[in-house]
């Protein structure tokens, strides 16, 4: 049993966050302009700024953490090194990238989820939500917030419903490090919500689950 990936979409149908764990078939990096900035460093179009793997300062960076040389104290007593290192620091190390480009994949995932959501709403007598679907290789779970954010997770097909996990991500890391983070421009349609604390916090939450092994 394991967890493969997490996608977050905003109400404008755009992917604002992506993270993956045990994927053996990774997506290719998105084409230039295919996805917003600050969605995931691992799938961003490859540019010289991304290749050095270092976070530059301010808003130009894919992550919203100000570096210390800007003179703004973001957090005291917590250095980057203490955070669990994200598995994407070395993009695509040791896994094949035979999949689709990430921007294509993100659109397909959203399309499938929206079509299924509409189908379920049509078939149901009351206003019912689509919860999950499974194939022979994976299971997709959906949690939608009132504000239109969609949390989508891919896991092992034998996993139970992981809706509560998606809700935990929303209630915990998402509210704390995205909604309450003044440096994240939510709903901007220009950039994603990726930042170091959110990524580390989600990573910790997922790795702590019993289905993650």
């Amino acid at each position: 049993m394991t967890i493969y990936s997490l996608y977050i979409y905003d109400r404008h149908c755009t992917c604002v966050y992506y993270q993956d764990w045990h994927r053996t078939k990774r997506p290719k990096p998105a084409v230039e302009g295919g996805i917003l900035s600050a969605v995931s460093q691992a799938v961003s179009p490859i540019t010289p700024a991304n290749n050095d793997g270092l976070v530059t300062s301010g808003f130009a960076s894919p992550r919203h953490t100000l570096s210390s040389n800007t003179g703004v104290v973001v957090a005291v007593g917590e250095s980057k090194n203490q955070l669990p290192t994200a598995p994407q620091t070395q993009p695509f190390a040791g896994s094949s990238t035979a999949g689709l480009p990430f921007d294509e994949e993100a659109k397909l995932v959203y399309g499938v989820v929206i079509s299924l959501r509409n189908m379920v709403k049509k078939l149901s007598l009351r206003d019912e939500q689509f919860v999950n679907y499974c194939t022979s290789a994976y299971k997709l779970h959906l949690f939608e917030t009132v504000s239109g954010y969609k949390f989508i997770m891919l896991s092992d097909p034998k996993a139970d419903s992981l809706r509560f996990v998606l809700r935990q991500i929303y209630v915990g890391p998402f509210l704390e490090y995205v909604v309450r983070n003044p440096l994240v421009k939510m709903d901007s349609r220009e950039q994603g919500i990726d930042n170091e604390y959110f990524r580390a916090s989600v990573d910790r939450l997922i790795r702590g689950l019993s289905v993650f092994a």
Partner: protein
Amino acid sequence: MTIFGLWVVNKAGGLVYQRNFADGLAPLTSNEYLVLAGTLHGIHAITSRLSPVGSSSGVQVIEAETFKMNILLTVTGTKFVLLTSLADTSADTILQKVYDIYSDAVMKNPFHTPEMPIRSDGFDTRIGTLIGNGQT
């Protein structure tokens, strides 16, 4: 455990058979069922390409809050879709039996045109005895 309905979708995504058993889902017009079957056909194709690990089949079970759709894809591309309550566990065996009945009563029927809507009393009655009023 309740069985709400059965759809048979041909390999081109057209709905060739649709029948409701128990109440519990919204009654739709035949046009709406056709649209849903077409959508499902498309979704089925996309889901097999989204696999995070190696190759995958298309979607097999779709769950909502009170019902689920169980999908059986045959090697010839025909899809059998059974709409049941969440607690139902017999869907796979029923779908397999429906496939058996389809092979017997539809494919061996010399008056049936392949890929066209199923109008066969034999199929209807045998499905009726298999599923009844949808309560198990």
